[in-house]
């Protein structure tokens, strides 16, 4: 960052350096840092300071009440989360969420983006608007609509399924422990398709059309062009969406879990962030919540590192 800012300065090598006082020189040096300082200070204050505090809180027992002194408990909080089953269940559920979310965040959107890419601009915009619409609807309102659709007896889904004879008794989408996770994924996925499609469409726009022209001249079929031109050149977007999906699925599903199931039945739909939130803001146990947060921070950090490594190997940039 500093290099970039410095290189943006006028070249001073021609000016006699000796004539400048030491303070001036220092000032010149720190000017670029002063430019980024407001942003940097805010990020430090709002992101890194709480991060450090979280580590501190994870060794204490405190209910976040300013009148109450935190009690230092060492590693007890970590011991609690590793010995209690709700933590393991939340981690397992999160893995399932991540896996099941991938079709909605990567595969389907990519297919949609590629399929609509060569349409006329008006048709393309209409299609993409349709897919993007769910993205701009408020999650709580969506949840209410989905709850009605998925209602075990009054819902449209079960009405269709029973009248077609697929099931004899309505599926309890949100209260059957075998269904609830899938249902949440379906809702969160439906919402994410729009955003991902947009990302993939943007990625496609960046591909130079002359590659396709050349391939057409060479007589290659459309599917072959997709396989050999589109996919490799789209790889940075694919990797980005893959990483976002893995790291953020737990956040994307949070609102629906909170509104529709509160993590239930009996923890079957909870995920790491919901658990963390329950510890911290329902039970006011900031120690447990922070300890869990520290564990997730390390876990997701490792995942992010692995992704950047893979990204360097796999993604192909066309400059």
């Amino acid at each position, binding site marked *: *960052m500093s*290099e*970039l800012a410095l290189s943006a300065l006028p070249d001073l090598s021609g000016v006699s350096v000796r004539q400048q006082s030491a303070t001036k020189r220092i000032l010149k040096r720190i000017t670029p840092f002063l430019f*980024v300082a*407001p*942003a*940097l200070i*805010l*990020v430090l204050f*709002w*992101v890194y300071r709480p991060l450090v505090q979280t580590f501190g809180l994870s060794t204490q*027992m*405190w*209910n*976040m*009440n*300013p*009148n*109450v002194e935190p009690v230092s408990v060492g590693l007890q909080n970590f011991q609690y989360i590793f010995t*209690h089953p*709700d933590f393991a269940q939340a981690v397992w559920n999160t893995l399932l969420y991540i896996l099941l979310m991938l079709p909605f965040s990567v595969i389907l959107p990519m297919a949609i983006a590629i399929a609509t890419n060569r349409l006329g601009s008006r048709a393309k915009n209409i299609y993409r608007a349709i897919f993007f619409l769910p993205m701009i609807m408020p999650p709580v309102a969506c949840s209410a609509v989905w*709850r*009605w659709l998925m*209602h*075990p*007896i*009054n819902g449209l889904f079960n009405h269709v399924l029973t009248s077609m004879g697929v099931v004899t008794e309505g599926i*309890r989408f*949100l*209260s*059957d*422990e075998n269904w609830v996770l899938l249902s949440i994924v379906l809702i969160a996925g439906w919402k994410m398709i729009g955003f991902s499609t947009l990302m993939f469409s943007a990625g496609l726009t960046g591909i130079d059309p002359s590659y396709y022209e050349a391939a057409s001249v060479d007589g290659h079929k459309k599917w072959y062009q997709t396989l050999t031109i589109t996919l490799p050149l789209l790889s940075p977007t694919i990797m980005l969406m893959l990483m976002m999906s893995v790291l953020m699925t737990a956040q994307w599903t949070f609102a629906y879990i909170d509104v*529709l*199931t*509160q993590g*239930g*039945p*009996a*923890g079957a739909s909870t995920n790491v962030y919901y658990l963390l939130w*329950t*510890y911290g*803001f*329902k*039970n*006011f*146990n900031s120690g*447990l919540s922070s300890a869990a947060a520290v564990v997730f921070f390390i876990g997701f950090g490792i995942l992010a590192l692995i992704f950047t490594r893979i990204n360097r190997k796999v993604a192909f940039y066309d400059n």
Partner: protein
Amino acid sequence: MKKKKIVALLAAAAMFVTMGTGCMTTKATDGTGSESGNGKTEITFYTYNLSVASHKEAAQKLIDDFNAQSDTVHVTGVAADVMSLQTKIQSDYAAGQTFDVVQCALNQVGYYVENYKLPSFEDVAGQDAFDAHMEGFAENAKTLGQYSDGKTYVLPYTFSTPMLYYNADLFRKAGLDPDAPIETWEDVKKCGTALKAAGYEGVQVTATTATGDYDWLIQAMIYSNGGDVMNADHTEVTFNDPNTVGAIQTWQDLVKSGAHTNYTDTEAQEAFLAGNQGMLVTPSAFESGLISAAESGGWELRAVGFPSFGEKEAIPTNSGSGLCIMSSDPEKQKAAWEFIKYVTSAEGYTTITSMMGYLPLRPAIVDDEKYLKSWAEEHPFVRTNLSQLNRLHRWEGFPGMNGGQISTLLNQTVTKCIFSDCDVAAEMQTLQDQAQDLMP
């Protein structure tokens, strides 16, 4: 190229951050009351009734009526979300932006007193004025807001007991007699099974999810079977007590037999409102919604008291809330007392009971022509509900910093037990061990 991206990202991050702080400052100014132009003391009232569709009108009416008759105080209502009420109160308090009068859950009195530096009503109003106001207040409700020092810090306000509501038309369609008494869980099971056999849904005790993960209705099940959640001096939890376990086993059996649905509580409520579910055990707080659904759906709503376990007397707990004063400014505390006095007066309870469905905590007003007599004749449920007040058990909050964690665990374990065929005794023993660890 890459570096430009980083700078752009940082800029974007900075923007988000400033946006965030912007929101927070506006919130803070909303939260503080101030002297208004006409010399009245301005106070804020944080209440979840304003965010419940079927309560909103009545909650606003209480505030408007008070403002219209008071020359010295002006109240502004602020809607709170019932599901995250405690979360909001705590985070507002931690952020130093509390409201002057706050509606809070009644199991938390100890927690509030120990953590929020509340003034007692005896101190704010003066002992004599307070005693005079409490004249005619339901005996069993009076003490619910008291702390161990004998002073009242939370005044019971909107308050209900669980009732069994049923759809008399569905009963007839299922070949059941809606006039036959439904007194025990055995009766409930019989009716539920018959309803199920006729293609409808049976009962649901909306105790696990609908109430924002609270555990008060679970506690009512446990007390009614002679069980308990804690020992007398609140040092040990008693989830492995045979009667506690027995209550959950009976409940599990209801579900297994098909008489009890295994929906989320919200789904069961919706099914009942739509006229597909025969019975619903739910706090009378939802009554106004049930009545209007029955009217528009054209079916007959009836209600009986909380069912009992065989010969044992049913022991309902209280859902609901009290009011506490969170302002530390003496002038605002006095103003808050004026408002609280009004909403818990005979007039206040007339609005609360007739428009929301909560209990009139001044029971005499149901016989008073001036207040609720004519209304009570049209709504006989209110007397059933009032009679339960005599057997009321306090909704206990678990002590210590991990008290909330124990409630959550209790709720989760009970949900797991009743909606699966697991070994209840074993699950409750696991809960016992986990929860005991969390006791102070």
